[in-house]
């Protein structure tokens, strides 16, 4: 059982440390036919912005060796429409619902969180930062969110700066950290010949994200949610046993193998954490693998 914001007004209890990553699972019901959602600790929605956004133009899915680049353009009809459209599904959700809010700016974050605060069916907010987010951006984003809602606030940090910014986010009031958002890259689409920028998914992301989680988890006390490239039960265990995460998010592996998130939930289901959030197992030392 994981507690997020246990001292707050609306604490969130995860009965299983397994959830989907934002952008991979839709808004709640899409995987209903394939995944037993009641076994998940929570459902994290696709990213939502205050103002509506259209799908990206040009190629949006480009396979790479052992993975894929996806560039959605963060298409969504805007927070108000999303709430109207999915309110009933959220109310009926067999797992707590965490809405992923794209941190497009403090005002938008304020408006999104204010709107979500009124929704009984919502259990938490995950704030998605952009890749170049600074300590200042994090503070501004969290201040805006805190002034709008008492919901638990999870901050999703970019892969490349997660270890550096984890402490900053905790100090700014994050109740939990998701490490990490999938990294951005640029590939050439073989079908069209065009360059496409987007997020990268694949099993090899795990090596990068596991390291970032291990580095961040020693620096903070709030729960760290490990995310990136989980493609097996052992991958999920590594985040928790080796890197010190309190929970995990399964991402693109589920697209290829929808069973995966169920297998992970079963694997981690019996697992009551025996350590403080953020503490490390014996295997991890802070210099780990630094010297080549």
């Amino acid at each position: 059982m994981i507690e997020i914001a246990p001292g707050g007004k609306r604490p969130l209890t995860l009965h299983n440390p397994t959830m989907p990553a934002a952008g991979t699972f839709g808004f709640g019901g899409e995987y209903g036919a394939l995944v037993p959602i009641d076994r998940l600790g929570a459902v994290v929605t696709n990213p939502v912005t205050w103002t509506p956004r259209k799908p990206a133009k040009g190629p949006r899915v480009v396979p790479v060796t052992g993975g894929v680049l996806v560039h959605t353009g963060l298409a969504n009809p805007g927070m108000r429409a999303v709430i109207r459209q999915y309110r009933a599904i959220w109310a009926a959700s067999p797992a707590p619902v965490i809405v992923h809010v794209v941190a497009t700016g403090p005002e938008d974050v304020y408006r999104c969180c204010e709107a979500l605060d009124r929704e009984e069916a919502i259990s938490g907010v995950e704030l998605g930062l952009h890749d170049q987010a600074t300590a200042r951006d994090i503070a501004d984003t969290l201040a805006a969110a805190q002034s709008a809602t008492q919901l638990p606030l999870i901050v999703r940090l970019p892969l490349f700066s997660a270890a550096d910014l984890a402490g900053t986010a905790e100090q700014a009031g994050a109740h939990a950290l998701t490490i990490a958002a999938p990294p951005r890259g640029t590939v050439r689409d073989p079908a069209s010949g065009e360059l496409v920028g987007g997020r990268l998914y694949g099993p090899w992301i795990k090596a990068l994200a596991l390291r970032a989680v291990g580095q961040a988890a020693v620096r903070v006390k709030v729960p760290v949610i490990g995310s990136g490239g989980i493609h097996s039960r052992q991958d999920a265990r590594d985040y928790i046993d080796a890197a010190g995460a309190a929970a995990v998010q399964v991402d693109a592996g589920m697209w290829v193998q929808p069973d995966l998130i169920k297998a992970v939930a079963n694997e981690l289901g019996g697992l009551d954490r025996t350590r403080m959030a953020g503490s490390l197992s014996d295997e991890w030392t802070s210099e780990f693998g630094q010297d080549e």
Partner: protein
Amino acid sequence: MRQTHASIERVTRITADLARVEVATDFAPGSIRPGQYLLVRLRPAWEPYLRERWTPVRFAGGLMLIDRPGDDVLMPGDTVDILGPCGKPFPLRPGAERFLLIVQNTSLTPLIALIEETTGAGKSATVVLEGEAQRYPPGELPREVEILHAPQAWGWLDQVDAIKWADQIIALAPPHRALERYAQLWSTINQLRAPAPAGFALGYFNLPAPCGVGACGACLVPGKHGDICACTDGPALDLAEISF
């Protein structure tokens, strides 16, 4: 939609770059309607990463027949993992008798089940093949179908009176050009037969489908009344509903 396994019974090369795969599955004939597709993982590795789209050509002798690139990946005895059926059947207009199918620079595989069903029901299907599409072996199509060869993008449309006699037009273009091509088609149709009625012209969006269940947002097509999810609401979408 469900997840299941199937076994490869036979692989026959029908052209240099196309193989016919016979698959033993627990999908009943008729349970996958023309237009619907399966997402298939060929082996339990993560390379290739995404599932492959299979649009069944037909069922025969209890087996499902699939056309796919003839690259020797599949062997008899292999087991594949299947998600499906995905998407919606072709939204055919009630009472439509004469279909005009246009395939541009891609394989007409996704339309074959439709061609067989319509001609089997005594309706008429005219297939216009452009560019690469002309490589599909004509012997594999029902004899009743009329096959035309066209030189270039929709250019011929105003030369013929197809738009007048057809009850429904269904177009298939390569995924990375689909939106652009269907925009051209839609504009041409509206010049020749304006306003084209709702449901008259369909575009088949054979887009890469990371999830196939409407979760990942990678296949959204901009719509006039909100974005349309090609993997679940399509693959065939009414061009009148698209915001080009």
